[in-house]
Structures are given as C-alpha cells and as structure tokens.
C-alpha cells in the first residue's frame, strides 16, 4: 500500500463553495423573513410619529372628522374586552377539546371532531362575521338579538379561536414523550393524574402558544366586527343592546385610513404601531407565564 492514500486534510473546493452558497442563501432567507416586521415598525413609526404621545393612549377620539383630536383609548379598551370575551369562551373549550383529541385520538368521535375542527380553521372570517350577525346581532336572526355589540363580536371571535386553540393544544400534548407518560403510569398513576401532573405541565408552553396564536388572530380581525359590532368612539357601559358596541384597534385603523383626512391617516399609523406593540407584549407575557408555570410544576408534585 502507498503511504499517502488519504486525501489532504481540509475541505475540498466543492464543499467550500457549497458551504458558502448555502450559508448565503440561509442569510438571505433570514433577512427576508425579518424585513417585514422591521418594515411594519418603521413605516408605522415614520407615518404615525406626529400623533404619538402618552395622551394618545389615554384619551377618546374627538373633533371633526371624529378622531382628528384625542387618542385611541376606545380602541385599546375595546380590543382588550373582545380578547377577554373570546378567550373566556375559547380557552376552556379549546384546551378541553385538545385534551380529548389527544387522549382518545383514535376513536371515531375524535376523528370526526378533528376533521370538523380543521374545516372550521378554513372558514373565511367574513363568513364567521355574517353568521355571527344572524345568530347574535340582528333582530330578524336566529337567536340572541343583541344588536351590534361587544358580546356578539367577542363570542364570534371566540368561536374563530376555538379550532386554533384545539389544534395547537393537541399538537403540544403529542410532543410530550411517550416514555415520560409511561414512567408515570408504571408508578400507578391514573390517566387523570398523568394529564394534570405531567402532560399539561410539559405541554404548557405549546398550549400557551396556541392561546396566543388565537388571541393574535382575534386582535387582527376586522371582517367579523363589521357585521357584529362595528365600532364605537367611546367606551360603552353595556356589552349588549343598541349602545353595546365597543371600540377596536383594527377597526379604528380600517376606518381612519378610509377617511379623506391626512390627520386621521397619521392617527391610523400611530394606532398600527400601538397594536403591533400590544401583540409583541402579549407574546412575551405568554412566554413568561408558560416559563413560570413550568418552573412551578417542577417544584410541586
């Protein structure tokens, strides 16, 4: 045998070129992926900075056209009310359904539930809005005659959220390793004890992400609101009836940007920046909460 049968150490030219090429593509993909976020923040800030101040967050719209003076307190409060109503409906239902789909995953009823839930994910939001209108809002509809109101809109948004929470909860539970579950069962734990004590804590980050995705979806919806709530320049005392509409940031942006008024366009972009910041804060808040509850579950039994 010859002595130097092995090639020289170091990468071949082909591999060097390939590494550089793929590395470059990855970098381009990364830049393309984050550019929109930076663009949103930059454009919203650049176009809206003239309207930004602390009082913008704390005052109601006024002047003529309405909103040319004052701020977006109605939209902030209204959006939070809608998120709260939607979450009160969708988090318990969605998490419970996700648990069911995980635990009974192969039963016919679970398969049917999963299929229907996935179909709901694909329903366009304008259809949710129209059906919400007929069921919750209008006097000539099928059910509740609540008028254009926060409750009608909140529940409609909640129903939009349920399949999102369900799907992500089931997936998060599926990601819990089987060995982990078996370890507990082999110690004589019941199904319920395993779910409560181990599976949910292990999946809590994923479940939190699912709730967050739902909330973010709801925050950005305008089509369902057009039919079930529309808009309010003030803060309502009731959530049903003829004065039950709430403000909403997304609707506020939508309405302001349609007005032929430069001043309202500035306000719209300032509101867009606020909405984006609320989204980022909620994201961090949920992550922190999930992290904290996991720590808690580790310490306790």
């Amino acid at each position: 045998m010859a002595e130097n049968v092995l090639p020289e150490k170091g990468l071949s030219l082909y591999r060097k070129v390939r590494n550089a090429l793929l590395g470059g593509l990855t970098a381009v993909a990364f830049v393309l992926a984050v550019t929109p976020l930076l663009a949103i923040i930059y454009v919203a800030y650049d176009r809206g900075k003239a309207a930004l101040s602390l009082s913008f967050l704390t005052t109601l719209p006024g002047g003529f056209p309405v909103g040319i003076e004052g701020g977006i307190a109605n939209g902030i409060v209204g959006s939070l009310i809608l998120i709260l109503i939607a979450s009160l409906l969708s988090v318990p239902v969605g998490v419970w359904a996700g648990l069911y789909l995980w635990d009974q995953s192969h039963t016919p009823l679970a398969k049917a539930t999963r299929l229907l839930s996935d179909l709901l994910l694909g329903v366009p939001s304008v259809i949710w809005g129209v059906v919400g209108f007929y069921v919750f809002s209008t006097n000539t509809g099928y059910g509740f005659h609540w008028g254009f109101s926060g409750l009608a809109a909140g529940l409609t948004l909640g129903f939009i959220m349920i399949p999102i929470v369900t799907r992500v909860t089931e997936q998060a539970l599926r990601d819990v390793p089987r060995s982990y579950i078996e370890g507990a069962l082999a110690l004589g734990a019941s199904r319920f004890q395993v779910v409560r004590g181990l599976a949910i804590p292990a999946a809590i980050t994923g479940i939190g992400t699912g709730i967050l995705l739902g909330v973010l979806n709801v925050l950005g919806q305008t089509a369902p609101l057009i039919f079930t709530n529309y808009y309010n320049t003030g803060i309502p005392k009731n959530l049903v009836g003829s004065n039950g509409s709430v403000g909403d940031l997304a609707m506020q942006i939508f309405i302001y940007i349609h007005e032929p008024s430069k001043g309202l366009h500035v306000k719209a972009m300032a509101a867009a920046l606020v909405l984006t910041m609320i989204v980022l804060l909620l994201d961090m808040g949920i992550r922190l909460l999930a992290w904290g509850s996991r720590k808690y579950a580790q310490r306790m039994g």
Partner: protein
Amino acid sequence: MEPESPALPVPKIEVKNFSAFYGKTQALHNVDFTIYERKITAMIGPSGCGKSTFLRSLNRMNDFFLDFRVEGSATLDGEEIYGPAVNPVLIRQRVGMVFQKPNPFQKSIFENVAYGLRIQGVKSRSVLSDIVEKSLKAAALWDEVKDRLNGSAFSLSGGQQQRLCIARALAVEPEVILLDEPASALDPISTARIEELMQDLKDRYTIAIVTHNMQQAARVSDRTAFFLDGTLVEVNDTTKIFTNPEDPRTEDYITGRFG
C-alpha cells in the same frame, strides 16, 4: 451461581397458555411460565421475539396500545391480572417497572422519587422525606445526590438517572419490579452498579429483567427464559440454560449461532 436454596421457591406470577396480539399479529404464542418470589428471572432472545411484550403484559403497560389483547391466564399471587374487575392502576402499584432509557420527570430529584407517593395522596413532608431517603439509599444513589435533592433530575448522568428511576419505582413499595433492558443505554461502570443493585434488591423484591445481553443474564439471574418468535422455548435455572440447555435452539442462540 449460588446453589438453590433448599426451601421450595414460591410462585409470584404464574402465566398459563398466555397469548398476546397486536391487532391481527400474534406476538406471544401460548406461553407457560412462572416467576418465583425473591428470585431474579431473566428473559433473553433476539429482537422481536416477544420478551418485552411479555414483560409489559405483566403490569398491563400494553393496555394503551389500542388493539392489544391477551388470551389465557396470568396471575399475581393467584389473582388474575387481566380479570374483569381488576383496576390496572392497582396492578401497576404492585408491579413496578423501569424502562430501557432513563425517563426521569422534569422535576427535582426529590420530587421524582416522591411522585408515586404524592399521587397516592401522601402529603406529609416528613413521611415523604423518609421514604425518598430510604428509596435513594436502596437504589445506591443517596450519597451522590443527598446534597442536591432539589436539583433537576436532568443534571444527573445517565447511570444516575436510571438509578433514580429505580428509586422512584421502589418508593411505592412494589412487590415485583420489571426491568426492560435497564442497562442497555448505560456505560459498563453504570451497568455494573445496576447489576450489584439488583443483587441487593433481590432479598426483598421479585425481579424480572429483559436483556439483550446474555452475559448479563448469566451474571445476575437465578432463572433464565429464552424466547424465540413469540414462543417460550425454554425456561430453567440460569446455570442449566447456559451450560446444558435442553433445546438445540437455545444452545444455538447462547453460543452465538444467531442473534
């Protein structure tokens, strides 16, 4: 090997004409087999021979496979393991299990061992502390972890994690411990510690171990069963199996003619 004790061994688990199925696939064919009290019984055989299925059938860990079913009889102290009124949770409290890969919970070392007691409703801190200490000592882990009981179980080495899983199983005071290839993911030193530990535990527990490693079966067990293609080919005293097997297939396997 130790000489057989003069007293007759007491049957702990008796399996008669036992078959197991995953859907239409039959994994075990008419197994007749007795596991004796306070003995170590080893199950050997090539991959897919049914030894793990058999082990997991003994504490109903296969119940979670949707289309799994059994035929025949398996009894624990004379009571049918698959009887209609039997709660599998209670069977698993009496028949504990340690798995191939260490699977500690995402909790502290203390809480890992205390988990089995907590789910039974034990709340007293002093009772828990006592049992945790006792179990960790029995699993030969106490000296290594006593100063960091509140540390994460994941900070332990693989061998330590496996002994933690054994301590966790011991804490609920099972009568039988099933070990499913407990050392196959461990280094030789950790393996030796687990094997020593089994000898210590034998005085108080009935132990059944599945292993790929024939030397391990020969080293640790009193009785050895050889499985092939879902049937029990031969079960006998370990010395007998490894020196003078009755069935030519057993001899072929232990001499390495197939594996």
